[in-house]
């Protein structure tokens, strides 16, 4: 699974992309975030207010209950500010 981070999440986590292999029990966005928070305190801090984070799975906006699979591209970013 490929993870991408943008804007202040990227700055705070010190990385823009990583390849991970989460355990089989990580089946949805909610589970993935919980697993990532448990893995790394830096990640736990950045994700402490989950309402401030948007998630996209394979370049479409996703909700906590949406499924994630091994081959997916999952992106985390703050609310967008373009235009």
């Amino acid at each position, binding site marked *: 699974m490929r993870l*991408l981070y*943008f*804007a*202040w999440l990227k*700055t705070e986590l010190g990385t823009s992309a990583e390849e991970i292999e989460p355990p089989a029990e990580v089946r949805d966005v909610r589970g993935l975030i919980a697993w990532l928070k448990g893995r790394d305190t830096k990640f736990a801090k950045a994700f402490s207010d989950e309402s401030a984070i948007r998630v*996209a799975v394979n*370049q*479409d*906006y996703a909700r906590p209950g949406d499924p994630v699979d091994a081959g997916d591209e999952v*992106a985390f*970013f*703050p*609310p*967008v*500010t*373009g*235009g």
Partner: protein
Amino acid sequence: MIRVQREDFDPGQEIAALTAGNHAVGGLAVFVGLVRDLASEGGLKAMTLEHYPGMTEKMLTSIEAEARARWPLEESLVIHRYGRLEPGDRIVLVATASAHRQAAFEACQFLIDWLKTKAPFWKLEETSEGAHWVEARAGDDEAAQRWRETDKAAE
């Protein structure tokens, strides 16, 4: 048509090309967003627009398709820049052409409202006090929301 690019664009050239030869167009609505620097806000030196390549194009394509499904448009164009921009620089262009002006205006506003809340761009502002990521504005969510209410009313 949608375009995501680092380079500047020429609004006059873009809108002339958009309607050239299409005599069914009666009205063309255009929005150009510029990098604003209000002295009261502390002197913006520059702004860097980060984006999510791939998802940006996917979102803009989907927003444009939605506009064309909802309004009788002859032509439409969205151009959004990324990279480093200075005050006065152009950021975004939305142009919509229709037989009638009301459709052109509504679709143009819909596109910029939705783009502001859906297209994955983030602004990093550089001021004399350092760089900071711009926070999303609640007003932008409300502006996009009014188009959703139209949906509900129609259901």
